[in-house]
């Protein structure tokens, strides 16, 4: 008897109308029909290839052969010569693990906060946060940025993304100066730029530089779900299968100093002026969304992309609340319909207008039109 095993680091994410093979090793995903999922499921439950052909009958013989050829040619699976060999390949654990109380933080840095950034970074370092996004809703000169980056000396924070306004002085010399000393800066986005462009890091500039014509003056720009943001990243997929793909181990500080799970969310767990980040983190409500996966969220639970997509709990369709009071509605800014497999512009959907008004996103929506 011959058996067929899907490589156990390829995970089938079954959607209601079609599915996805998430290849965690090669970090890419491919759409597959649900007919193929049924066959994979059958084979994975130790049905021999011979029995499978028998079950599906002569009329499906060719289709199944094509499917098996597809899986082997793309190295999604392999043949085993016996049940004994088949059983030597256990499923890969899909548990997510990693140390640290917080892994990532987002800070909207007001001018007031900029002066006290040192104490905030010290606290984040104590929580062993390793990556950080700093939002400056204003232009920053080179001295200002350098002095911000100097505050990271002696911390374990290894990745810093900066968002700031474009201004005349931003050019090759500006970036070279920013690169003059080794800092954890991994990317910088200049919004309000005269053009859209991305320059990936290279041997001269050690961080990605992005220019965007869009105007960012609040966190309302965030939470967009788009195929461009899909990412079959091994640990990120595991995290999405077990936790909320945006909010898990995240801490946010909004422009007023309020400590939140994400700066765009409503609930505050204290202000940075009087509350320590570690204290806010201990608040019973702080982690309420950390365990909410896409499998718990309306519509998303039927979507084939749910494990490679980023969730948003700050802006939702406001249609579903679970028994524990958690908002389990689909993210507002997602235009994908897993039932028809079609993408549409989220902001014009008639059923979303109420939520758009609720969050005060009318202006943002108008500007994007």
């Amino acid at each position, binding site marked *: 008897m011959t058996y067929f095993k899907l490589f156990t680091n390829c995970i089938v994410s079954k959607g209601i109308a079609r599915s996805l093979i998430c290849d965690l090793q090669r970090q890419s995903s491919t759409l597959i029909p649900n007919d193929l999922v049924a066959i994979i499921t059958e084979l994975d439950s130790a049905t021999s290839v011979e029995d499978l052909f028998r079950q599906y009958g002569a009329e499906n013989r060719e289709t199944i052969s094509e499917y098996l050829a597809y899986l082997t040619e793309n190295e999604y699976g392999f043949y085993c010569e016996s049940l*004994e060999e088949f059983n030597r390949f256990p499923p890969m654990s899909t548990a997510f693990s990693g140390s*640290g109380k917080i892994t990532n933080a987002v800070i909207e840095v007001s001018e007031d906060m900029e002066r006290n950034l040192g104490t905030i970074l010290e606290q984040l370092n104590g929580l062993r946060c390793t990556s950080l996004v700093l939002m400056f809703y204003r232009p920053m000169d080179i001295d200002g940025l350098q002095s911000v980056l100097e505050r990271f000396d002696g911390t374990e924070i290894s990745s810093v993304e900066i968002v700031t306004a474009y201004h005349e002085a931003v050019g090759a010399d500006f970036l070279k100066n920013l690169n003059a000393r080794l800092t954890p800066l991994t990317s910088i986005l200049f919004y309000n730029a005269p053009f859209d462009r991305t320059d990936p890091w290279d041997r001269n500039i050690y961080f990605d530089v992005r220019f965007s014509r869009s105007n960012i003056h609040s966190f309302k720009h965030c939470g967009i779900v788009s195929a461009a943001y899909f990412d079959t990243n*091994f640990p990120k997929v595991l995290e999405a299968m077990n936790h909320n793909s945006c909010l898990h181990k995240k801490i946010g500080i909004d422009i007023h100093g309020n400590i939140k799970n994400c700066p765009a969310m409503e609930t505050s767990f204290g202000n940075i002026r009087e509350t320590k980040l570690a204290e806010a983190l201990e608040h019973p409500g702080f982690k309420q969304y950390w365990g909410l996966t896409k499998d718990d969220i309306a519509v998303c639970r039927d979507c084939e992309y749910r494990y490679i997509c980023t969730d948003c709990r700050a802006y939702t369709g406001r249609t579903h609340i679970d028994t524990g009071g958690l908002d389990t509605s689909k993210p507002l800014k997602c235009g994908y319909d897993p039932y028809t497999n079609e993408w549409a512009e989220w902001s014009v959907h008639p059923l979303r207008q109420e939520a758009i008004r609720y969050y005060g996103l009318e202006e943002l929506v108008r500007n994007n039109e």
Partner: protein
Amino acid sequence: MILIFSEVNDLSTLAVAGYLDDYGVPYTVVLKTDTLRYTDADKGTLYIGENKICLKDIHAVWFRRGKFFIRSNAFKDRELDLYLYENNVIIEDYVNYKLEQVKSIGSAAGLHVNKLIVLEKAKACGLTVPDYCLEHDFQQQDATYIVKGVNGNTHFNSDQLRIILPVVKLNDSHSSGLSFFQRYTEKKYELRIFYLHGRFWSMAIFSQNDPQTTTDFRKYNKERPNRNIPYTLPTAIEAKLTCLMESLSLNTGSIDMIVTPSLEHVFLEVNPVGQFGMVSLPCNYNLEKEIADFLKS
């Protein structure tokens, strides 16, 4: 207190340390650049730079990289330097011996193994090993042998003999120094196995699909990397490997094996300080946490 001998920026050490931080368990990482001393005071005291640790407070030791050592002062006086060195060796051996008395991963002694002894013991434990021989002048017109440095080195280059990373299939007559020849074993997949105190975590590497990595998977193919997935060893093989590790007095190590097209398990080698990250990560075994849990308990 947990003592960890390691190197600066070793990712596995940092990952394990992260879990120890989560647990709030005290630990000290000793780097090769640290200046170490030992005194008899207070039932034995280690100095790591200015940091002082009593031997009796150490409940677990991880010999990740290196062991207790005393850097000798060079007085440029041959006799004096030799005298001090001999003294230091005795103190080093004693401290390492004491450190091995507590729960430990790795050992001060077991940083190196002798390939020939390992293969002999593997056979004695019932493991299948490829045919091998030591030859001065290997004139046999046999393409089924591969040559390796007997010391396990994979780089060697001279006028007489050239070993290209990591192995060459021997396809013409070959005149060399004393070399280690091993019969090439056909494989269905390779196994990388991490062993820790009687437990096994195995990974199968499907390198045979790719001609670029057929002889040794370390010749990576970046475009389409070999498939690496979790694997369960037959219990009979686990028992034989445990026998081998025990007979080598190794409590941890990285084991290389081959599964042949006829599904036979063939033992290749064991590395006492092997990387486990390359098994842990692809298989999502989270060995870093296993190690932290072991050290903590």
